[in-house]
């Protein structure tokens, strides 16, 4: 899997490429519009991460260029300009996803993975870890082929972790992702602990081979049980 990162900020570029390399992708980078333009013309990538605010040109033009070349590369727009027009324009012109800055690297990886998977299967998205399969579109979960019923919040939590397996997720980040923007203003995380507890119970009762483990009391990680 080959990924091209088009990003002018050196520090962000480094983090993105480090994270993606760690996930096993082959990563190449381009730092300017001109460089990116010649790179995409000459090579093919499974996924292109495109910052639309480049010092020497608008990334949206690059997107048009890629599509004019008849390339089928997946493109995820990364933008600090969280504006609806950019998003709509980008998605209408062949971008596969839109990721506003600032983002968590886990989020980035989840999006890349999801875009690549979509590109491959072209059907319903399935997230698989161990013997657990999660289908976001139908909001269904199966453990070893057996359906497992879940409450809304439990499903949302599992979905979040399934997108970033083996990644530690900070509980306030999780709370914000599942309960909304202000969830971490709460005095404590009782609401979160309760849901995690239920989720763990359901998974283990269904005989799932994955587990949610606590990391030092401030985060969780979803991983496959070591058998």
């Amino acid at each position, binding site marked *: 899997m080959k990924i091209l990162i088009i990003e002018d900020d050196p520090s962000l570029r480094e983090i993105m490429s480090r994270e993606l390399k760690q996930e096993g992708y082959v990563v190449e980078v381009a730092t300017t519009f001109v460089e990116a333009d010649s790179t995409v013309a000459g090579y093919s990538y499974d996924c292109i991460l495109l910052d639309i605010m480049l010092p020497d040109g608008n990334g949206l033009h690059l997107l048009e260029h890629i599509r004019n070349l008849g390339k089928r590369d997946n493109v995820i727009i990364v933008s600090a300009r*969280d504006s609806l027009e950019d998003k709509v324009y980008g998605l209408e012109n062949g971008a596969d996803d839109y990721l506003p800055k600032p983002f968590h690297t886990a989020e980035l990886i989840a999006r890349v993975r999801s875009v690549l998977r979509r590109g491959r299967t072209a059907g319903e998205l399935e997230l698989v870890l161990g013997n657990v399969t999660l289908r976001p579109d139908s909001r269904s979960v199966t453990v070893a082929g057996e359906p497992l019923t879940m409450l809304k919040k439990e499903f949302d939590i599992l979905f979040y972790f399934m997108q970033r397996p083996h990644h530690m997720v900070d509980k306030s980040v999780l709370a914000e992702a599942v309960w909304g923007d202000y969830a971490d203003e709460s005095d404590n995380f009782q609401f979160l602990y309760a849901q995690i507890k239920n989720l763990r119970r359901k998974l283990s009762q269904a005989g799932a081979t994955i587990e949610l483990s606590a990391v*030092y009391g401030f985060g969780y990680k979803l991983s496959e049980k070591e058998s």
Partner: protein
Amino acid sequence: MHLFSRIVRHLALVLILLMTLWAVLFFYAMMDEIRDEADDSLEHYSAVIISRVLAGRELPQLGDGSNNSYKLMPVSQEYAASHPHLAYHDENFLIADKGEEEPARVITTIFSDDAGQYYELKVATPTFEKNDLFESIAIWIVVLYVGLLLVVLAVIALVLYRNMHPLYALLDWLESYRPGCKPKPLPGETRIKEFRKLRMALQRAIERSELMLERQAQFIGDASHELQTPLAIIGNRIEWLMNSDSLTEEEATELYKIHQTLLRAVRLNKTLLLLTKIDNHQFPESTDVDIVQLIRDYIENYGEVFESRGVTFRVDLPEQYVVHMNESLAQTLVNNLIKNTYIHAPEQSVAHVELREGVMTISNEGVESLDAEHVFDRFYKASKKHTSTGLGLALVAAVCRLYDMPLEYGFEQGRHRFTVKF
């Protein structure tokens, strides 16, 4: 007091005093003149009688139609010596025409004929005629002066009103002006130099303040924008570190705390960006949004999150209430008000939300009123809750401002009350 009524009142006061004084003076001068005239005519009449007496001619008949009467009496030399030869006084006098005594103006003349005989001649004219005259003069003076006063004041008022009109138009405009909203064109086009200058000064001041406001908003927007990438980088590096297996628990906990602080900075920054975007009208697309559904969703969602605080909501909501506005702004509005209540209501208390005839009211118990002037300001914090950004209500206010929806805060019967009219 209005400038207009103040000027008219002061002018009226001065004019009433001056004109009264003038009228009184005029009246007395007039009276004096009339009395003088009357005395002159009496004198003339008595001179006629005296010359007739001295010439031995027939005296004028009494009761000849003129109201004058006279009385001629020979007097002794001593009497003549002891009395003034010409004297005016007022007394009751037998008026020949009427045959009865009437108050009259009398001239007494003492003279002697060739034979050395002294006579006293009294000529009288009744004063009622003069009094009648005075009376009608007085009435006319009062009528005319009061009329004059009223006309003068009316003219002044009219002239003032006509000329002050541009000033009032400017004031009305200034009152309706709200910083940040595009101002209506300045009224009060006029040829009066002072008002023209005032209007120009106002125009320049507004333009300056609009520019400053725009720059300030621009600055906040740019600053938050520029901060996004570095914040994201720090966050990602921390997350990377936290996922490292070689960390000790102590190090990991420290990193977690740093991350918490960073997340707060990120949220603050995001909120500032959102505020700027609302103020810059960057949410054009509107859809039909069911406010009731939003309220129910957020109550349920935050009810879970803030469960440990024990705050419950009593709801008084219709089936649905659909408003045409930007969906994410509607969410921002309802979200912040509900979250605010969950966070700030006392523990184990009952908050109340109702939506009636397009007016949403959210109230909860409180100890004392918040500063109603500043409660919607950025970074206003009544409590020292460290997690609060102090921007939630500012966001609510910004959304309401954008849609021209009245937003009010009040404190009644021990309850904080926020009202939004959709």
